[in-house]
Each structure stands twice: as structure tokens, then as C-alpha cells.
């Protein structure tokens, strides 16, 4: 009985210490923020339905001068290096843009890229954003472009493809052999900051933080240069899943081996207990 009392005391003080330095301390260091907003409620939703055919014409007239659409065989007019030095950052491929990004976000982005990406602290009249505003187009035309972009491909993008299109212009994934499309030096002069390699981000930031952070970086880090890219919830999950498959690729092995190790030690403990009882019967 005394042993249980002692064990209870030891466990109590250990638990209090653990609670204090882990959950409690982290709640104090990282104050609670609102959960991820995949509705992009600050952007006014589209009021009209888009027309795919007229969208196609608008995209051909306005977008492909800078953007590639590889799924249609439309290559970018410039190399990554040339594009980076011309615009500051490599324009993204649009193959899955209509699917991986939220539709209302895309519409808001076309009208006013700087406020959609929440980068007004970085870009303005003195330092223009690489993507021009298309606010001279009508609501209908914007809806047409969004509708067409969503109609380009029927196949679902793989986790890695979503990452490459949404993040890969700035971020490298060294542990998967992926190098950011924009050279680091161009990016630094364009954004005023380097974009880190994200190979181990899943371990350093953890999935929970990443899901809020990617949704709206500025909410989590004051003055950050990373844009809000407007991924849908499903696409963002794909990005996080890809990050996990690179930075924590042994997770499944770890979680299944854990059960075996615990089971092994539990059996060891049981046998040790029975042996102990037998041995101590002679002396007690």
C-alpha cells in the first residue's frame, strides 16, 4: 500500500511539471488564434455563374503571356531564371489553379492581388506586386476566368503537385530533391526575406500549426512576407500530407512499432513481476 502511495506522489509531481512546461507553457507562448478560415470571408463572393467558353478566351488573352498551363501543353514563355529576374518571382503554372484554390479567393485575387494575399505591408504603389490587378474586368468576366480555370483538368492533382504549384515557386523541399523555382537571390530582393526549405517543417511546426498558418500566415507571424495563397481545405490537407510524407516519412513505422515495443515491455514486466513474487516469497 505504501508503495502505491509513493508512486501516486511521484506521478503527481511529474504530471504537474509536465503540464507546466508543455501544454501550459506553450499555451502562454503561442496565444490562441481563430481557426483557419477556408471560407475566405473577408473576400466578397462571386454573384454570377461563369461561362467556361468565354473564360477560355479571356485566359488566352490575359494570362498565358506570363503563366504556363502545362496540362494543356502551354509552356511558360520564359525560363524560371528569366521570369524571376523580370517579375521578382516565377509566375505559377495554372494547370490546377482553378481546383486547388478557393473560387471566391481566386476571384478576389484577380481583382486585388495584394489584399487577397494580405501583403499590403510589403507591396503598394512604390513596390508593385508581380501580378497585376484585373479589377477593370467585369464581375462576369472574372467569374468566366474562374470557371474556365476550374475546368482545365479533370484529374485530381497529387499531393506533390499541389505543393509544387502552390508553394514550390518559393520553397524548396530538399529532402525530396525539389528546388524552389525562383532563385533565392531574386526572391530575397522581391520579398525582402528568404523562403526557408520546408523539408522538416512538419516536425518543427507540427500539422496543427501549419493548417492555420498556411491558411493565413500574417495572422500567425507579424509582418511575414509569405502570402495567403487561398488553398481550399482539401488542397491544404494535401500540402500538409506531402510535407509529412517527406519530413516525417517514418511516422507509420513509428506508430506501429510503438505498439510492439510497449507490448514487449509489458510482457517483460509481467514475467519480472511473477519472478519477483516468487523470489521474495522466500525472504518476506
Amino acid at each position, binding site marked *: 500500500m505504501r*508503495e502505491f502511495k509513493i508512486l501516486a506522489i511521484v506521478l503527481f*509531481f511529474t504530471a*504537474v511539471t509536465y503540464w507546466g512546461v508543455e501544454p501550459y507553457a506553450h499555451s502562454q507562448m503561442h496565444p490562441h488564434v481563430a481557426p483557419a478560415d477556408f471560407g475566405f470571408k473577408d473576400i466578397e463572393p462571386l454573384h454570377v455563374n461563369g461561362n467556361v467558353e468565354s473564360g477560355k478566351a479571356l485566359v488566352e488573352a490575359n494570362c498565358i503571356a506570363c503563366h504556363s498551363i502545362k496540362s494543356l501543353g502551354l509552356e511558360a514563355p520564359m525560363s524560371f531564371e528569366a521570369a524571376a529576374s523580370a517579375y521578382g518571382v516565377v509566375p505559377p503554372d495554372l494547370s490546377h489553379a482553378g481546383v486547388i484554390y478557393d473560387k471566391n479567393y481566386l476571384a478576389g485575387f484577380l481583382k486585388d492581388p495584394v489584399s487577397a494575399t494580405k501583403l499590403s505591408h510589403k507591396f503598394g504603389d512604390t513596390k508593385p506586386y508581380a501580378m497585376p490587378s484585373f479589377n477593370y474586368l467585369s464581375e462576369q468576366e472574372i467569374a468566366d476566368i474562374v470557371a474556365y480555370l476550374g475546368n482545365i483538368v479533370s484529374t485530381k492533382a497529387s499531393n506533390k503537385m499541389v505543393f509544387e504549384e502552390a508553394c514550390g515557386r518559393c520553397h524548396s523541399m530538399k529532402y525530396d530533391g525539389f528546388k524552389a523555382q525562383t532563385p533565392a537571390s531574386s526572391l530575397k530582393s522581391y520579398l525582402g526575406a528568404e523562403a526557408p526549405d520546408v523539408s522538416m517543417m512538419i516536425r*518543427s511546426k507540427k500539422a496543427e500549426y501549419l493548417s492555420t498558418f498556411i491558411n493565413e500566415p500574417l495572422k500567425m507571424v507579424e509582418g511575414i512576407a509569405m502570402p495567403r495563397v487561398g488553398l481550399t481545405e482539401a488542397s491544404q490537407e494535401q500540402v500538409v500530407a506531402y510535407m509529412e510524407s517527406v519530413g516525417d516519412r517514418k511516422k507509420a513505422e513509428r506508430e506501429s512499432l*510503438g505498439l510492439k515495443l510497449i507490448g514487449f*515491455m509489458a510482457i517483460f514486466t509481467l514475467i519480472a513481476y511473477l519472478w519477483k513474487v516468487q523470489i521474495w516469497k522466500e525472504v518476506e
Partner: protein
Amino acid sequence: MAEIQKSEGFIDWLDQRLAVKAFMRVMMTEYWIPKNINFLWAMGVVLVVLFGVLLVTGLLLLMYYKPDINLAFDSVNYTIMQEVEYGWLWRHMHGVAASATFLIIYIHLFTGIYYGSYKKGREMIWITGMVLFIAFSAEAFSGYMLPWGQMSYWAAQVITNLFSGIPVIGDDVVIWIRGDYVVADATLTRFFMLHVVLLPLVIIVVIAVHFYSLRFPHVNNQESEVFDFEIESEKFLEGRKKESKVVPFWPVFLSKDFFVVGFFMTIFFALVCYQFDFAMDPINFEPANSMKTPAHIYPEWYFLWNYEVLRGFFFDIGGMAAMDIGLIAFVIANIVFMILPFLDRNPMNTGPAHKRPVFKYWFWLLVCDMIVLTVYGKLPPTGVNAWVGFVAAVLFLGLFIALPFITKHEAKGDAQ
């Protein structure tokens, strides 16, 4: 020279040359341990097992780790964590075992204080134990630098900078320790040497001395009862096992320890596979970046109480700079446990804390204060947190200043 005869078997052959039978008697079957003990007496063996885990996993990690600031991070996080078969397991076990070692060291230390096992002939056990604590602290600190993550770098920067507080030669000492003006490649390589060669050697030697120092005063028991080990061991050998107050180290004492070790290692593997963030801080999975200071810099949890004593003094007092007061307090905190046997002025009362009228309050106050220091050592030192830290740090020092008076007073009461 001994008379060598034709051996009756392998053991006998060995025994004639190495006296293995006598050795086993002295070390195992006739090494006597009191019977009246509880599971807290198994912490020493748990620590030996953990040290074994650290040694073996450390050797495995050493086969792939690269002590170079350009290669270290990737060798740990890519080569070991992803490429090497079960490399992640060795690393997780190594990291969690390091933290678990400190948890058990603290339990072991508080057990020693509670049961008065640091005095009346047991001073050398206590002092060698505290030397081990310091050696393990250095081992943990040097090891934490090796993955070259953000906290590896910044903790190294902050902690090595503490030595600049030494009067006159401080700045030179910092450069001497770092091997450079800032924490850099030279720093990593020398801490690598310390972590994998010098400190493990020191630890192994001091562990041996720690065990040796147990032989003469013997292991304490739950009631601090004093008895003649000779008489009690003879009773046991005569077969009066139930009557004897002692048991042999092998198999009786160890049979209980194996059970405790098993229980503990079950929890250990759960932590290794499912709950490892407390021991492997996520921020250290970010590569070291000398241009980007982390928002919060803090040491591993087992150094937090110490760190808070340093940081608790956040304002100048009587013309003395806050930093200097903190440093002095920090140095005192690091050595004060070492001299505990001499601060206790009631050396003859070795009873457990619950049988000592004043000391028991002192003990529990110390435990609580160290937990408060640990928690507030991690919290941002702003507003009320800074004051809680200050009060806890003053209380910590105050407890050790008060100890000689409290125990002296207690001794007077005992005498009456």
C-alpha cells in the same frame, strides 16, 4: 602464484585465473542490501539501464552523424531520421532517454534528501552523485548542440555567453570555450568531442566511484534503521532468510529492480513513439540560423529551474547589475546541492523527512519551489511571470540559507 590444477570445467578454469566465484560473491550474491526498501531504491538500476540505452543508441547514431555545421543538421534529420533503417528509433530513444535520465536523477536526488541518505557516513555517495549530475548536465548540453537546430545554436550562444560574467577574464573565457568569437564550426566540433569521448569517460569513472562509495556505509533503508550487516547477512546465509534484515543484490534485490525497470521502460517506449516533443523540442527541427533569433529561447526542461534562478533577478539591487546577481545566484544553485550534507546541522538524525518535525516542511517547500521555477523558467519573463520567478528564486536561495538554522533547531529538540 596460485596453484593451478587441471580444471573441472570452464568456470573452474576461469576461477583459477580470475577468481570469478569470489568476484561474483562480492559483487552480486553476497552484496547485502536492506530488505526494508520501496521502489524508489530501484532508481539507481533504472539509471544504469537508461545510461546503457544512451550508450548503445549513441554508438549507432555516431556511425552516421557528421560534426560539421554544413552537414550536421542533414546528417541527423535526413540520413539518420529517414535513410538509415530504424535510425529514427535510435534518435528518438537517445533524445527521450536523455530527458528520462534527468527525471529519474531528480527522483533519485529527492529520494536521497527525503530519507536522509546524504549524511552520517554517506556524504561521499551524495557528493559523487552530485558530480554525476553535473557531468550529465554537461553531457546533455553538449549533446543538444549536435543536431545544429535553432535551439542548439541559440542555447549554445546564450549559455556560453554566461561565462562572460566572470570578472576580468570573462570575455576571453567565452572565446576560449567557443573556439571562435561566435558559436561556430569550431564550437560544434569541440562539443562533439566532449559529448562522445571526454564526458562519457568521466561519467563512467564517476559511476564506478559512486557505486564503490556505497560499499562501506551500505545502502540506506526506509526507516534509516542502523543494524549490523555482518550479523544480518550471516542470518541470511544460515537460511533464516525471513528473519534477516538484508537480502543479496542478486537475485533478490535485482528481481524487484527488473520489475520496476520493466514498468518504467514500458512507459519509456510509449514516450519514444507517441509523446516525444517534451524531449525533442520541435523548434530544434528548424536548421540553425544565426540571423534569426527565435521568439522564445529556453533550455531543455531539466535545466529550467536553474535557468530561472539566473533569470529571476531581473532588476538591479543596491547598485549591482541584475545580470551579476543572477549569475551569482546561478552559480550558488549549481553547487548548493553538493554541500547539502554540511548544511544539515542535525547530522545524527537520519530519519525520513516525515519523522523530522521541521525538515519535512523544508523538503516539500523545496520540491514545490523547484517545480515553480521549472515552469516559470519556460514562460515568457514578462509582467507577473517575472515576479513569480523572482520570488521563487529568492525562496530557493532562502531555503538553503535557512537549512543550517532549521536543522540546528531540530537537533536541539532531538536532544531533549
